[in-house]
């Protein structure tokens, strides 16, 4: 277990340095330090509906010192996703601003300090908030759902949050908008380790106590697209070659 943890820490550090270097260079091209989707060389579309989509990663468009401060904040945030430290995450927020938080496994936003502090407490200390029925027809809105039912963290034996390809820029004096990619791996108790890739967006505010979070949201890929991608990853080069051959033959016949 110790060896494994050490390996994880070392990997996190390396990843962190790689992502910081990518930021500092300001490259517009992809600079993913991770092999995001094992077997992706077999993916026809490499995770995209349209093979023409670009990776628009821009890095930081902020002054060097601001970039350094914000990367330190993001790295601090990432490092707190462990079974021992996840309850300290609200310390990175501006206490004078109403917080908004949406984690990828949650049904509803956490809005305000009662909800955010309550969620990140070791024990569930706040009343359950019903998701209001707001008139949407069908879909999961009709399913009974409650905020704190989705507290996954207390059941985790291990967690690892890796940050990749941060793009950030100023949207107003003292306010920065940032987007990045997340490689999140976790080991629930009595369940095998698993990993998930999603995106994150955040807003940071400059306060008397340095830069702080005021908004954070995580975005998975739409489930139907995610499953479709799994299917695409099963396509072999042989099958792609066969399709190509058929298309060539068809083209030759029409000429």
């Amino acid at each position, binding site marked *: 277990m110790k060896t494994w943890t050490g390996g994880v820490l070392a990997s996190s550090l390396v990843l962190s340095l790689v992502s910081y270097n990518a930021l500092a260079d300001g490259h517009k091209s992809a600079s993913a330090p991770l092999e995001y989707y094992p077997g992706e060389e077999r993916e026809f579309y490499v995770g995209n509906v349209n093979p023409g989509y670009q990776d*628009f990663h821009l890095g930081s468009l902020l002054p060097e010192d601001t970039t350094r401060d914000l990367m330190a904040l993001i790295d601090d945030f990432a490092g707190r996703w462990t079974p021992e430290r996840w309850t300290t995450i609200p310390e990175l927020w501006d206490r004078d601003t109403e917080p908004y938080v949406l984690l*990828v496994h949650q049904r509803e936003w956490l809005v305000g300090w009662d909800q955010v502090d309550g969620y990140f407490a070791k024990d569930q200390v706040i009343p359950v908030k019903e998701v209001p029925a*707001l008139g949407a027809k069908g879909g*999961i809105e009709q399913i009974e759902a409650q905020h704190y039912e989705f507290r996954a963290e207390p059941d985790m034996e291990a967690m690892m949050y890796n940050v990749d390809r941060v793009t950030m820029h100023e949207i107003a004096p003292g306010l920065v908008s940032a987007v990045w990619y997340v490689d999140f791996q976790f080991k629930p108790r009595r369940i095998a380790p698993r990993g998930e890739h999603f*995106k994150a967006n955040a807003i940071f*505010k400059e306060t008397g106590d340095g830069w702080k979070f005021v908004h954070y949201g995580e*975005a998975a*890929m739409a489930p*139907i697209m995610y499953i479709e991608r799994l299917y695409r990853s099963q396509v072999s080069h042989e099958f792609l070659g066969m399709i190509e051959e058929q298309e060539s033959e068809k083209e030759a016949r029409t000429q």
Partner: protein
Amino acid sequence: MKKLLMTCCFAIALAGPAKAESILHSETSAPKADAEAIEAIVIEWASKFNRGDWMRIKDMWDADEETPTYLGEERDQWVIGQEGLDQYFNPPSENTMVETVVIQPYGLRVRLLSDTIAVATWENSLDFKMKTRPAVQDDYRVNAIFRKKDDGKWYFIHYAELAMSPLIYVEHLYRRGVSEGFPENGKPYDAGRSGYANN
């Protein structure tokens, strides 16, 4: 009967068009005027898709923002910059696989982070039909950042659709079919184990 109908028509005419129900959530903290202005934009955003006018979506973005950011729930990569938005919202027509969509936004929360920056969260109920597939429906969360410009209007500078983790979403779908009264009407799964062990 005819008189009754005429009376009804007259009453409806006097009342004017029915005002659409607000989609603002009670957790909105922005001043009323700003919240309603953002609400109008969010409704117009959906309306452009619903009437097939989505190629003009980009008009609702701040053209002076050098780094607009966008994420559709179907994508696994951010779209960043004006060039990215152009590509996303104006693809070649031969690539269009979508037959029709109906988007209904709801649960809109608006808060101000400064005089010129607002953040909004809401949900979209999406009915969606691809040309080659059956119709499907989906609910997903959205967050967006708006900037108020000198003309007094708010414009998008960031928009992201925040889909739920696929495994949790599928679990939700499975939960829909749970029989009434379950699990309370079931026996503990392990109830017979101790008796079995004693035999």
